[in-house]
């Protein structure tokens, strides 16, 4: 009988290790002036330096150093007064120099931690994830294997190389081993990556888009029998490209490894690839025989020695911690934790806060962004913030609150703004979306409706109030939906002696 997850964690204690690669959002690459924009035509963002042409030399991007120090400070790390780059030597066609300029034994930030909170059977519980190091390196190019069935290098007809990504600054954040999580390992892993993403976003140092690869996570996992003091052999799962996948990868590996152990097999030290469809991992490169990267200090670069004063200035400039901010806003707006989480996950906290700051009522601001705006954004497959500004949403909400727009009309206004028809005011004018609040105009429509449906009007007069619905509907239709239905009802009933 194969073990399921609950059976597995009853018998085996998981130990985690998480390595997160983050592409910094600097304007230029790590060691040259090339642009870093995502999605440019292949090999258009390259130069002699990032192509590794003979004779070219690297120069460190100061902004990337600053971003790395900010990350280290936000993760409670010590910033090394002296750190160095090293060369990691190995051959691969998408590596222009056939060595990666990275940091090895002298990283820029060491010994930090990040506290995360998860829901357990006994209520909320905090876990401390210790950070071993934060170091800088450069990204490689991309290979595209054409032909063959799998899209992998084996069996391909030919391969295309794109060096636009080569030299993009990367920061790698490596945890120490995370133990003592028991069955909550998947949640702790997810909470850590989630919180890390929030921190990086708050620092403004990366786009942290897991689906675009600007944030990538490797999950190391080993199992040991519950109560044992030894660590088992670990696997390293790559290609984990969403928060949900982080959680699923841990679950998948716990189940796979526990069943191997149950069957008396050993765990092979190897990299594994996460399969998005199945939630399982596929065997990759064996790490049993450690590859020799022949690291040595990069002679083309001078050591990185940030001044203490600069570090302190950066420390003073750190933004409010995302967890602190969430707590503060949750209390301020008086919203349930679930709603808060929804805003965070939708990456809408900033715009909702800004909209509320412009005078909107918190519940309305939240529901417009998470509701209508998000729906339109999904249809168009773009981010909500590309479609409409917080100021425009706040304006629409203000018009609802003043009675100038109904919810229904407001949806049309938002649709117009999103469609590029102009500001909310301009959309209202162009589409003629004003609420008909003129009693005289409404009375004309009401009288017309009564004339058209005399029997219905008679029933209302006789006290059959639900019958008024048909008359109200006719009025709304006659005014093109621009009347306030409540107002119509009030005037109609009064006119028929029921007000």
């Amino acid at each position, binding site marked *: 009988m194969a073990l399921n997850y609950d059976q597995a964690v009853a018998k085996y204690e998981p130990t985690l290790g998480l390595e997160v690669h983050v592409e910094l959002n600097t304007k230029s690459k790590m060691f040259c002036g090339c642009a870093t924009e995502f999605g440019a035509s292949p090999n258009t963002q390259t130069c002699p330096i990032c192509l590794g*042409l003979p004779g070219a030399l690297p120069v460190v991007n100061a902004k990337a150093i600053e971003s790395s120090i900010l990350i280290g400070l936000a993760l409670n790390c010590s910033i090394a007064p002296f750190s160095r780059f090293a060369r990691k030597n190995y051959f691969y066609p998408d590596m222009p120099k056939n060595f990666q300029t990275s940091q090895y034994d002298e990283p820029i930030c060491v010994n930090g931690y990040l506290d995360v909170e998860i829901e357990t059977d006994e209520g909320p519980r905090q876990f401390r994830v210790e950070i071993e190091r934060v170091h800088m390196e450069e990204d490689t190019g991309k290979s595209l294997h054409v032909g063959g069935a799998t899209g992998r290098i084996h069996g391909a007809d030919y*391969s295309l190389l794109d060096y636009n990504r080569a030299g993009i600054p990367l920061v790698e954040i490596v945890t120490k081993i995370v133990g003592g999580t028991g069955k909550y390992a998947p949640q702790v892993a997810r909470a850590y990556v989630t919180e890390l993403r929030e921190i990086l976003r708050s620092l403004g140092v990366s786009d942290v888009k897991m689906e675009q690869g600007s944030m990538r996570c490797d999950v190391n996992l080993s199992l040991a029998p519950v109560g044992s003091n030894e660590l088992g052999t670990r696997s390293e799962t790559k290609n984990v490209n969403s928060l949900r996948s982080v959680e699923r990868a841990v679950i998948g590996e716990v189940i796979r490894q526990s069943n191997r152990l149950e069957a008396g097999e050993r765990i092979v030290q190897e990299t594994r690839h996460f399969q998005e469809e199945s939630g399982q991992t596929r065997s990759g490169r064996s790490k049993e025989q450690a590859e020799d990267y022949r690291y040595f200090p990069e002679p083309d670069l001078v050591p990185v020695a940030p001044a203490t004063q600069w570090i302190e200035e950066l420390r003073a400039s750190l933004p409010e911690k995302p967890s602190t901010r969430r707590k503060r806003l949750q209390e301020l707006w008086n919203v349930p934790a679930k709603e808060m989480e929804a805003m965070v996950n939708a990456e809408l906290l900033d715009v909702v806060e800004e909209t509320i700051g412009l005078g909107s009522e918190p519940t309305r601001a939240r529901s417009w962004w998470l509701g209508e705006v998000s729906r339109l954004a999904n249809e168009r497959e773009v981010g909500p913030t590309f479609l409409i500004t917080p100021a425009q949403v706040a304006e629409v909400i203000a018009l609802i609150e003043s009675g100038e727009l109904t919810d229904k009309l407001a949806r049309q206004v938002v649709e117009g703004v999103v469609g590029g028809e102009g500001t909310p005011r301009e959309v209202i004018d162009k589409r003629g979306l004003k609420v008909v609040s003129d009693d005289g105009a409404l009375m004309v429509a009401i009288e017309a409706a009564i004339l058209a449906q005399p029997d219905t009007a008679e029933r209302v007069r006789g006290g059959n109030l639900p019958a008024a619905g048909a008359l109200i509907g006719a009025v709304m239709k006659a005014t093109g939906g621009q009347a306030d239905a409540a107002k119509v009802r009030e005037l109609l009933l009064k006119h028929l002696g029921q007000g």
Partner: protein
Amino acid sequence: MSDVTIHSTAAQMSEALIAGSTTSVALTNAHFAQIEAVEPAVHAFLHLDKDGALSQAAEVDAKRARGEKLAPLAGVPLALKDVLAQQGVPTTAGSKMLEGWRPPYDATVVKKLKDAGVVILGKTNMDEFAMGSSTENSAYGNTHNPWDLTRIPGGSGGGSAAALAAFQAPLAIGTDTGGSIRQPAAVTGTVGVKPTYGGVSRYGLIAFSSSLDQAGPCARTVLDTALLHEAIAGYDQMDSTSINAPVPQVVAAAKKLDIKGLKIGVVKELLGEGFQAGVRQRFEEALEELVKAGAQIVEVSCPNFDYGLAAYYLIAPSEASSNLARFDSMRYGIRIGDDGTRSAAEVMSLTRHEGFGAEVKRRIILGTYALSSGYYDAYYGSAQKVRTLVKRDFDAAFANVDVLVSPTCPTTAFKLGENTDDPLAMYLNDIATIPVNLAGIGGMSLPCGLAPEDGLPVGFQIMSPGMRDDLMYQVGGTLEAALVSKWGHTLLSQAPALAGN
């Protein structure tokens, strides 16, 4: 100065150009005529850029005619070592690997030369990727020493030195990782300077060993070398290891002709066993001239220099094994075996097998081994410690003396083929030049006579503290003047007919 010829100095050519008694086009044509005449015998060049050179010369002449203010060396021709990237001009580093490669960019040194109006005649021959002491490791044939065509012109910059000695160019650029400027200068009777590491930008210099490589000036006189030094030196933000400080005033120093009161240290360890008798004799005679000029000579011991060669042959190959990894046929250079059936790894392997010569492969293997896990501490790590000790030896010596001196090489030029089967004998040629690279300081070689036993040039090496390159020019200029006055002629005027008489 209406009668400048290819035998004139660069300084004289510069004066004549300024005076209007000659034109850059005329000078350039005269040098191409000499190249045509002697190149079949010397083979100093891998590529001649006659069109580019003449167009630069015409541009300089036109600017001068308009009365524009030009740099001192504007219009003077120069030979460029093929290890520096020059936009659009074939650049091979002496390797088959880069056959046909035309760089899309200029090295900083090349850019500075162009900006100064210097006329680049072509690219000179060299040991493949600057690995060698005889230019015999070039993939494109031997260069011959103009003093004796059966002998080596030194290396790796044999092409640049031979071009100067054969009057094919008055100026040349070399690069020096363990002596590749100074040793060729010594064996061809010319002058060569390795500036302080970081004094001249390495951007665009195809790397052999990044922490040791340094481009520098080569010429036939100390003053010409100084003029070229000032044209190419200075901080470059494209090279992180370049020094952000004013360029030492080497031209003024070369003109000073006064060394009264200077203290000169003779390095005991660089004059012992293995040094040819005639080399020692001419070296000691030169010391007498320095004493006559008012300098004080003292003996200095640098005990760790004995380990310098061994440390060098671990550090340089280690860095080279990594620097040369990029030559994989994917982006530039030759590609072997890409017939649609082989994998990228197989094509890389075949290309590297065909594209690299034996000496380059030897050093890649050495370096790969020295950096390997388990051997790193014993080899690369120990070598770095020796490097620190060599630096300390220099620091201690310079606390007591202004400059240090030694013969540039243990012997005069050896015969072509004499050492090709004995890498260790070849490596020993650099014993006196290597410590300067390990310490990152400046070193100069200038001629101090012909060895009595073979009639071949002997080089005199002057070593100065970091960023005090002016001191070696001051001593070199003074010694050169004293020797020329003693001989009654320049050394090169004694060279065989080929060189110019």
